[in-house]
């Protein structure tokens, strides 16, 4: 937290700073995600750049007050560009001892710690396996601790409303939110509007939440508890209209956009799975755009129905996460064989098996590239940031429709739930997606290819004179009839591979960020973009010659990757897996790249990257 100036404001000092990281932590029933989202929305609307990291347990309601039940929401907001939610936090709001215990390690020395003093009774401490009360044993001495009786004060604020104690206690997160708004000089207006909208049918709850929010704000004002408040001016983002967007929302908007641009109905076949379900929820609202959502009986039916809808002429997509992706494997092969356009979104999470359902990981890359029987190449795209999910959805749809192929999009839990400001594009900035349905029976052959894309015609049922049969058995070239001849099979395998390779013509040559040549090239993909960008910026500011190549196309790779790799002395591939892109690069380009691998269900911290970079540079 870098202090720029200090201005007196009554007895309370006001400091203008350029960045802060705040984390709300409590029970999964304490409403921490809502609290964090509200704070995010407010600072985004104010014009700060933001990056968020919601981190919640897989259990819907683990036993109250225990460590496994702790849910957190971290936000980095700044008057400069931000790329990550931040390594360490300036302000920690802890609703109980378990939340304090789990999160304290990330609080900066001298950081602000707001705790709910009402939840530090002996029984609360026991649930968190604490033998001593941290509020009394001096273990928190290096922080600025503010024990606040959130429960008592909230109840007092809501007195005479006629709510029972339990209902009143449910508002205490908004009391804490009100305090944070005061601390950062933020308007309560956006949250008040949200409350009025959210509880529009329950006027009593509107009143209660508003009172709790304002109660927290007034409490700070009246007691001058903090002695200091902060001001973070708006960021200098490129001009335009912005909104706050999470990765899953962005994917949903991207697919609606692609369908509109292509003039097709959007069909989503999906089976609920964390952390992908929000895309299904989101798209099920867009019926005014003709979106058809089908909650299938299982993952296999989800992709099978998607293949059927694609065959019938829709822009068809399916969304899932790792274990669901495994179940879809056989159907992916069918989509490759029948050469139908569809998009499969895998919102990766920690694995194998059920693994870490709510935690992020990038370990499904090799599955996406190779995880099918036989030779079944599929294009793979990966968004770099939450907002980039919008553009990847549009691009994946465009590629699928142009080349008549299934396309895999690899997002992850961090991108899915994380949010950032998104500059809303004008309609003209979004590429058109031309679609051609075969209509003419003259000379029609189901597997006669376009010479440029190698795509086959899309002849949808209902078109007179184009009746034909497709399926999973090997096809004869051109006619599409069942054929088992040895040379035809080899030819078809090579054509299917060449078709995916042909997409390279649409993939722009990649230019590394930072130095175009030098001591170290960092190659990355997916959600690690932000942390690496931040780290490279810092390292280059110290005069180090570093380039950063971030791949959005994993298959096919941009055609100049091999050349770029040769321009640096060392190559580092940081990934949230055991080294999967590293494996691909080493195999394909015979490059002596090394990995930085973290498999903890959490994103990289900048410090982890800095340390590895400096080690490789011999510093």
């Amino acid at each position, binding site marked *: 937290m870098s202090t720029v100036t200090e201005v007196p404001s009554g007895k309370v000092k006001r400091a203008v700073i350029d960045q802060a990281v705040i984390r709300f932590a409590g029970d999964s029933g304490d409403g921490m995600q809502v609290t964090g989202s509200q704070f995010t929305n407010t600072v985004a609307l104010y*014009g700060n750049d933001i990056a968020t990291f919601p981190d919640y347990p897989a259990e819907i309601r683990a036993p109250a007050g225990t460590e496994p039940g702790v849910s957190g929401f971290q936000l980095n907001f700044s008057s400069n560009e931000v790329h990550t939610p931040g390594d360490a936090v300036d302000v920690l709001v802890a609703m109980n001892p378990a939340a304090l215990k789990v999160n304290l390690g990330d609080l900066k020395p001298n950081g602000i710690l707001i705790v709910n003093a009402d939840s530090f009774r002996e029984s609360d401490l026991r649930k968190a396996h604490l033998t001593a009360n941290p509020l009394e044993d001096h273990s928190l001495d290096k922080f600025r601790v503010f024990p606040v009786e959130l429960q008592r004060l909230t109840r007092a604020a809501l007195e005479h409303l006629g709510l029972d104690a339990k209902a009143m206690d449910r508002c205490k997160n908004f009391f804490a939110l009100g305090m944070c708004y005061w601390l950062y000089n933020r308007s309560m207006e956006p949250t008040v509007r949200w409350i009025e909208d959210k509880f529009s049918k329950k006027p009593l709850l509107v009143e209660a939440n508003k009172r709790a929010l304002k109660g927290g704000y007034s409490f700070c004002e009246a007691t001058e508890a903090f002695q200091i408040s902060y001001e973070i001016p708006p960021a200098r983002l490129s001009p335009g209209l*912005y909104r706050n967007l999470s990765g899953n929302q962005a994917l949903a908007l991207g697919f609606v956009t692609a369908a509109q641009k292509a003039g097709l109905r959007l069909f989503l076949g999906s089976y609920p799975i964390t952390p992908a379900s929000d895309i299904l929820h989101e798209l099920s609202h867009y019926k005014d755009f003709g979106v058809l959502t*089908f909650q299938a009986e299982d993952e296999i039916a989800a992709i*099978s129905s998607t293949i*059927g809808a694609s065959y019938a002429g829709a822009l068809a997509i399916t969304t899932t996460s790792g274990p669901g992706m495994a179940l879809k494997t056989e159907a992916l092969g069918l989509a490759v064989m029948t050469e139908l356009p569809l998009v499969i979104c895998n919102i990766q999470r920690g694995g194998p098996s059920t693994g870490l359902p709510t935690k992020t990981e990038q370990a499904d890359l090799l599955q996406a590239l190779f995880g099918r029987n036989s030779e079944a190449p599929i294009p793979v795209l990966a968004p770099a940031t939450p907002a980039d999910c919008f553009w990847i959805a549009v691009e994946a749809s465009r590629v699928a429709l142009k080349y008549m192929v299934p396309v895999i999009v690899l997002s992850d839990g961090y991108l899915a739930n994380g949010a950032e400001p998104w500059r809303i594009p004008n309609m003209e900035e979004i590429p058109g997606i031309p679609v051609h349905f075969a209509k003419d029976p003259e000379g029609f052959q189901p597997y006669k290819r376009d010479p440029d894309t190698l795509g086959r015609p899309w002849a949808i*049922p209902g078109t007179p004179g184009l009746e034909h*049969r*497709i399926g999973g058995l090997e096809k004869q070239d051109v006619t599409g*009839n069942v054929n088992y001849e040895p040379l035809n099979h080899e030819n078809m395998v090579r054509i299917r591979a060449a078709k995916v390779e042909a997409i390279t013509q649409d993939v722009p040559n990649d230019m590394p960020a930072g130095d175009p040549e030098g001591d170290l090239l960092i190659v990355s993909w997916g959600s690690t973009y932000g942390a690496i960008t931040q780290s490279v910026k810092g390292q280059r500011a110290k005069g180090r010659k570093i380039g950063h190549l971030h791949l959005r196309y994993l298959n096919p790779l941009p055609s100049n990757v091999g050349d770029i790799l040769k321009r640096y002395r060392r190559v580092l591939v940081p990934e949230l897996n055991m080294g999967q892109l590293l494996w691909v690069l080493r195999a394909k380009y015979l490059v002596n790249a090394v990995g930085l691998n973290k498999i903890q269900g959490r994103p990289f911290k900048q410090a982890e990257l800095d340390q590895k970079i400096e080690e490789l540079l011999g510093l």
Partner: protein
Amino acid sequence: MTTTALPQLTKKDFQTDQEVRWCPGCGDYAILSAVQSVFPELGIPREKFVVVSGIGCSSRFPYYMNTYGFHSIHGRAPAVATGIKIAHPELEVWVATGDGDALAIGGNHTIHMLRRNVGIKVLLFNNRIYGLTKGQYSPTSEFHKITKSTPYGSPDRPFNPISLAIGAEATFVARSVDIFQAHLKNTLKAAGAHRGSAFVEILQNCNIFNDGAWVGLTEKDARSEHVLQLEHGKPLVFGKNGDKGIRRKLDGDIEVVQLGNGISESDLVVHDSHHPRSFYAFQLSHMEHRPGFPTPIGVLRAWDHLPRYEDVINEQVAEVIKKKGAGDLAKLLRAGDTWEVK
């Protein structure tokens, strides 16, 4: 508006140039012939037909039908077909499947398609054996059946496909037999006329791995004694001389009675395939498991008053558009809280 009469289609219009590759003598030939005869009579343009299948001998069916066709993967035909129907409800989608495809690997999709009442016609070719993998027992094989994978007899109790379909609340459930051509065609026509999910079990012989699968029903002498041909509005009569019938007992159960000696057709249950409740059809479907009872064929249930799934989904979309107007993309992208950076 002028209406153009549909060109009169014939059986030949539905035959493809592909060589049919079932074993000589297979029951599938008879089913193919019946379907090719019935399709022209449904009054639907050829390009509207889509035949979808999974994997197995019966699933080669689409290759021999000159319509749109999709030979998908094992067990998943109902799911592929559901996607087609939701995206394109006016298509006429038929699924060809077998006892392994529909009841083992694809059992889940079969029941969910039926309970949703997707407007799909399902032809389940039941030969009580795995043919394409050369002779293992299937979910409809008899208990204790000796097969390649059960040299000491099958430990599995079989599904009754008709009971399963009725249990899943299918709105049309029928049964016919490959070699009863006239009956089969009539049954297919009845299925074709149904708007919701139509489930037709076709008892089919596999002369290579399970020859005589249904001989107890198909042998000339056995036919009349062991088969009860259902007709809506007609009493349940069977037997060589039409001398046996099904009567309802006071406790709600049914019994087989000998006509004569004071018992006449007016004492028998009159078949009502349109009954809105499924318990009656379920009771009929269980007869074959009881000693002395016949096996019913024909339409057990045809109650077409449930909206089709694809219509429900598409009507929801239409209603929202009617209420909110067609979506405006520029507005959607700008929805919610926004702020301007200058």
